[in-house]
């Protein structure tokens, strides 16, 4: 439903988004992940037609956003970063305005308002003025605005930014629920969010896409993937390293923690450890040497690990 082809945006000499391509289908929730200043907001602004691209094409439901902006915008709901709202209106008045601008009037309008208010739990503040709302409610109002016309496509820039943990959880489950019937893109710099809500993630850094895949695929790219973490006692770090290092399936052993009497070591596989052979070998070594194993765990790989490895730490903040 969304097709982004070679999208580029330069602000003067600064290239904020550099040749980005991807697409999102119905039923997909795409997480747009990247450090601050990576170009997430700029990309979303081009998708929603707020700023024109320097080069490249965005197609929304087949409509080129530059050539047919009205048709494209009709299909989308957009929650801009930090959820801007008209502060001099009530929640109901604001949602009514957004519905009307989108051509929803009269009876349909009140139905749309009721539905959005229900979905975003805004009943208690329905008649309250926007400028007296707490941050959580303001955010939900922004969210309600984005879904007021039940769009096929939803674009959200940091929808959980500034919310407390419960509210974050709420927004994520709302996104998951809506993701079944829509195409959704949301940006975040929180890794757990990607695992919690996305069917696919794109990592963007300094304007470029550096990874694109399901959360599991991304995690498998992590160095940690398929390594074993072993906690043993009754021995010393040096001996653990030597013995485990001699296992043919292992490529490397690191000592994560050495607090006598317990040693925690991490054993990395030579190649993908399909059948758990490395695990069995570790057990054999431990029993041969009479180590007391208190824990052995196979790592799936971690998002933060891959994130750290493929994004550069010196991306300047905005």
């Amino acid at each position: 439903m969304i097709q982004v082809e070679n999208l580029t945006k330069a602000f003067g000499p600064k290239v904020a988004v550099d040749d980005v391509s991807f697409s999102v289908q119905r039923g997909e929730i795409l997480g747009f992940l990247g450090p601050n200043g990576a170009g997430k907001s700029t990309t979303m602004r081009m998708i929603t037609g707020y700023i024109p691209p320097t080069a490249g094409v965005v197609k929304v439901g087949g409509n080129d956003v530059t050539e047919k902006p009205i048709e494209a915008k009709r299909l989308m709901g957009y929650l801009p970063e930090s959820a801007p709202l008209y502060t001099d209106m009530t929640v109901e008045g604001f949602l009514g305005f957004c519905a009307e601008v989108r051509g929803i009037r009269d009876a349909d309008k009140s139905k749309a308002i009721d539905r959005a208010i229900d979905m975003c739990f805004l009943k208690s503040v329905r008649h309250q003025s926007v400028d007296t709302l707490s941050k959580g409610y303001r955010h939900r109002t922004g969210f309600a605005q984005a879904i007021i016309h039940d769009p096929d496509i939803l674009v959200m820039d940091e929808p959980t930014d500034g919310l407390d943990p419960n509210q974050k959880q709420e927004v994520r489950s709302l996104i998951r629920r809506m993701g079944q019937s829509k195409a959704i893109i949301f940006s975040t710099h929180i890794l757990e969010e990607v695992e919690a809500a996305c069917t696919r993630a794109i990592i963007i850094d300094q304007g470029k896409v550096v990874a694109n895949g399901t959360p599991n695929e991304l995690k498998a790219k992590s160095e940690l993937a398929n390594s074993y973490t072993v906690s043993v006692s009754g021995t010393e770090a040096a001996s653990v390293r030597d013995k485990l290092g001699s296992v043919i399936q292992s490529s490397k052993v690191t000592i994560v923690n050495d607090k006598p009497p317990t040693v925690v070591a991490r054993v990395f596989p030579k190649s993908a450890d399909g059948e758990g052979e490395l695990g069995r070998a570790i057990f054999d070594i431990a029993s041969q040497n009479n180590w007391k194993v208190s824990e052995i765990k196979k790592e799936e790989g971690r998002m933060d690990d891959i994130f750290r490895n493929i994004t550069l730490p010196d991306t300047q903040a905005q």
Partner: protein
Amino acid sequence: MKSIWTITKRELAGYFNSPVAYVFLVIFLLMTGAFTFLIGQFMDRNQATLQAFFMWHPWIYLFLVPAVGMRLWSEERRLGTMELLLTMPISLWHCIIGKFLASWLFLTLALVMTFPIWITVNYLGDPDNTVIVASYIGSFFLAGAYLSITSMTSAFTRNQVISFILSVVICLFLVLCGWPPVTDVVEPLAPRWIVEFVAASSVMTNVEQFNNGQIDSRAVIYFLSVIGFPLFATSVIIRGLRA
């Protein structure tokens, strides 16, 4: 068309949701009254005309119109709602015109509320009502011209105060370039045709036509261009912001 009206309605409601609108209306009525009766000496003139009333409008509007229009776009930029508005399925022109119409309607309401003075002059004497109607139309156009300039300056900055000051300065220029005390000073210094050209592009010369009871097509075209051009500039500025 409907979306223009949606924008206009929201903007108008914005005026009346805050006390500012009522304060403005009161100040406007007090000021027009004070200028007419105290400075213009409406009573002592002993003439059945509203000249003493309309002659002050270019000056009173100079501050009040930018005050009404200064928030049009600057507030939108300050709150970040511009991103919301311009990603809705509605053209930029509809937004610009919708907002402009809202503030013009508000000023028209203020102007309509001066009707007691019209009744008074009819009660006291026997004025030429066609002149008065023409003068009201002139005043209506004048407000629109100032307002359109304010729309432009408000798109320029997120700061309402700067938007106000810029607008006052530009409007003041349009007033002064045709105001006799200024043109008299400039006259000997520049070729005659320049002085005449500049004077012809002043709001004073054009609003004068209406105050004399004539609805001159050149004056109408003048005002329509002074309304149209800054609105066009508003769209250029907003597009430029996003590039």
